[in-house]
């Protein structure tokens, strides 16, 4: 979750002021609310500044851009409940699909922008303590006895769902791997989780500041951020042999932009994410840029590792969500008593 309430509150205030200001500003269309997921705060703070400069250089009035951050599911929920987001930049397509299901966004949203509407990608890595005392090199090492693992709750956190699916994909790939062995692996992993936060940022806090657990399953960018923010902690990033290609998607919230008259601004905002300048900015914030040239520029910042997609392994988010995370799914079985 947020860092924690202050930012939640800031998001709420931003939302509230946007709501209050909406009628007056409908004509000038100079406010924009980006409802995003947990670890994107730093990136969007920088991107917003860059976008405002770009937009005003086109002779447009200076827009006020607010962002709100939280667990991806929670954020989508807030938009469903009436938070007047102009754009959503969430952790996974499923959460935007839920908005589409409720008529807030056109159903074919994912085809409206390049690269499945994911301007940057990320993956899941393992963050360990100084000197890697538990000798964690790959997913299999997590399942050893005595290793305590921190991850957010897949029910509420997009990042946690990627964590879970990455482990599942790895387990399928092992000799003799099947759905049954993969289920054993995730069950074993969650047995070794002492604290389940509701969002990625909350788990980072729990791992780094509260010193819980031996390893944090983390977004690649969040892991780098933790290294930067807490240099004295001596944390180390371990790249597993295989991980998942996380494609955090973005979309304009059609119903809100049409009501508020902010469509042009909102579309320009999202398209600007694909410019070389923004791709470079994403890379400096440890999101893997889609632009191959800029990815190459970044060099060793993004070590190559085998990345599988949700489409390949799980047949898309709809199926993955139903099988694994919905009530009564595989994840719920982990916590069923008597197992």
């Amino acid at each position, binding site marked *: *979750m947020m860092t*924690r*309430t202050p930012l*939640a*509150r800031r998001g709420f205030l931003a939302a509230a002021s946007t709501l209050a200001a909406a009628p007056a500003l409908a004509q000038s269309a100079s406010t924009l609310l980006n409802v995003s997921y947990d670890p994107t705060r730093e990136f969007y703070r920088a991107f917003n500044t860059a976008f405002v400069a770009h937009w005003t250089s086109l002779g447009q009035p200076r827009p006020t851009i607010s962002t709100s951050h939280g*667990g991806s*599911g*929670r954020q989508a*929920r807030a938009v*469903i409940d009436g938070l007047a987001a102009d754009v959503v930049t969430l952790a996974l397509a499923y959460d935007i699909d*839920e908005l589409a299901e409720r008529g807030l966004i056109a159903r074919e949203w994912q085809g409206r922008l390049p690269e499945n509407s994911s301007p940057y990608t990320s993956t899941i890595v393992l963050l360990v303590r100084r000197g890697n005392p538990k000798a964690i090199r790959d997913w299999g090492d997590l399942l050893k006895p005595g290793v305590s693992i921190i991850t957010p*709750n897949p*029910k*509420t956190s997009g990042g946690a769902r990627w964590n879970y699916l990455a482990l599942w994909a790895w387990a399928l790939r092992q000799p003799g791997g099947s759905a049954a062995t993969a289920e054993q692996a995730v069950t074993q992993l969650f047995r070794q*989780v*002492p*604290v*389940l*936060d*509701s969002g990625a940022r909350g788990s980072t806090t729990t791992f780094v*500041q*509260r*010193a*819980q657990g031996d390893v944090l399953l983390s977004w690649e960018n969040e892991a780098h951020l933790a290294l930067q923010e807490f240099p004295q902690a001596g944390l180390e990033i371990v790249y597993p042999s295989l991980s998942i290609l996380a494609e955090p998607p973005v979309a304009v919230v059609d119903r809100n932009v049409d009501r508020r008259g902010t469509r042009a601004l909102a579309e320009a905002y999202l398209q600007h994410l694909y410019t070389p300048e923004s791709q470079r900015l994403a890379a400096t914030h440890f999101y893997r840029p889609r632009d191959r040239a800029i990815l190459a520029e970044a060099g060793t910042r993004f070590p190559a590792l085998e990345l599988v997609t949700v489409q390949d392994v799980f047949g898309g988010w709809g199926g993955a969500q139903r099988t694994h*995370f*919905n*009530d009564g799914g595989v994840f*719920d079985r982990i*916590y*069923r*008593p008597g197992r």
Partner: protein
Amino acid sequence: MTAAATALRPARVGRATGRRALPGLGLSLGVTLAWLGLIVLIPLAALAIKPWQIGISGVVAVLLDARVLAAFRLSFGAALLAAIISLPLGLLFAWVITRYRFPGRRLLDALVDLPFALPTAVAGLAMTALLANNGWLGAPLAAAFGWQIAYRPVGVLIALVFVALPFMIRSVEPVLRDLALEGEEAAATLGATRMQTLWRVVLPALAPALITGFGLGFGRAVGEYGSVIFIAGNMPMATEIAPLLIVTKLEQYDDAAAAAIGLAMLVLAFLILLALNLLQRWVRRGRA
């Protein structure tokens, strides 16, 4: 005498003709009921209607789920325990600030209200930082006794005592302040021991206030979310509170299940508060 009697007359006449000494009853009653309807009854009615879209069997299935039951046990159990712990602590605290004069008393008095004003998330974060096994208090406790407090049910309990205690203190304090010292002195002159005075004179007079404080503290604790989620660890079947489960269901877009849990919490809390209310009336009647 007659003048006084006639002076009293108009009110009596007024009552007979349906008029009151103070004006505006109709208006104020109307406003009160409208507000009550708007901010209490309508949301509650919405909550009561929402769950049934998954059918009675759906609601029953949600509520009998092992994970939901575990969350209920934790939420209600810890809230009751927190209220029970607050009872002697709150009484002691109220006693100290009303009956003794010492330097810093006013400061202490003001500190009691702090949990009312402090965002509960701040309190939760502070307690977690303090009690986690690398915290100022948590580290020595872990080293000396091997205790872990944060991310355990006991952490939940501590957070709930923190939010419940001020209600207990503030309920008891005014009654204690108004309780004439003469009563205690009279008991002493009639030969009562200090224990007897406390047990037979002071506590019975405080009982209704104690019950009020207990009810308020319990009610506050059972619905507490902000501070608890930080210290609880939020593990299904172990440290997951019912309000968190509601939020989780909402984030899974399962509104009906969330409403079902909410409604069940409401009904349970209402029954417990009703029982406390009846107990209070019985205590009052016993004294009258």
